[in-house]
């Protein structure tokens, strides 16, 4: 039984490596040099190359997917609020923030943080099984 306020199992990722980022860039086709070239990243005011936001969003989806099992993920939205740099770790926490019985769906909020700083704020809508 899913209830408002339920906490989902979190996900802790140790330092994300440039190799992981390169693998993601290759698989997704993302050619933005910001994620590869430290000098460009420094020029943009960062102290290192940033992890692609979509790689973090995929991990947010992974957190919801691991919890909901075969429940259908209907939508996922994310704000990339602060850059996470290659070599940094990140913690994902999630909880059910609303149950909408009439629409048979639950809203799950996922927060990814690095040393108390929010790097990603996501919201997922999950279809609930029929009663």
């Amino acid at each position, binding site marked *: 039984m899913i209830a408002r306020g339920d906490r989902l199992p979190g996900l802790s990722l140790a330092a994300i490596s440039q190799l992981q980022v390169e693998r993601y860039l290759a698989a997704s086709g993302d050619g933005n040099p910001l994620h590869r070239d430290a000098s460009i990243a420094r020029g943009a005011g960062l102290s290192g190359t940033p992890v692609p936001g979509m790689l973090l969003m995929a991990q947010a989806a992974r957190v919801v*997917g691991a919890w909901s099992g075969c429940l259908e993920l209907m939508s*996922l939205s994310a704000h990339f609020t602060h850059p996470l740099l290659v070599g940094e770790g990140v913690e994902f926490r999630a909880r059910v923030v609303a149950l909408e019985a009439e629409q048979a769906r639950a809203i799950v909020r996922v927060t990814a943080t690095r040393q108390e700083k929010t790097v990603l704020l996501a919201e997922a809508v999950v279809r609930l099984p029929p009663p």
Partner: protein
Amino acid sequence: MKRDDSDACSARWHLGRFRVDTSAPRVARFREAIELDVAGSGAAHDAVPITFPICWLTSPEITAALTGRLRDVGMSPGQLPIHLQQEIILLGPLEIDTAYWLNVTLAGPDVGLKFRVEAEVTAEDGSEVATLVVGLALVVPAGRPA
């Protein structure tokens, strides 16, 4: 490209209608890259991840259409797009090894050189399958031409 001035705050441009697909090898590479198949992920091993459609938006055709339009509205060669936000709404699961159409629109600029890329995903029969919305901002890294 057709310009649609219906929104008084920011202009909208239709970037085109593009053929895309969920080819099994590409989906498998993407799943591997996001480490979706590790134990306990709860995901079916042949499912298309909800974030997979971002791969379509980075295709050379769509990137060229998007970059061309951004340059038309003043983006300099030294500017880079920064991904600020993303929304993916599915009306049903994306099927593996299936072709779709992607209808892409650019809207903006808003304050802070922010743009929105909106893409409607439709199936072969024209039924709507998903909507993608990307929020971008343009930045000029120091040392690059403004």
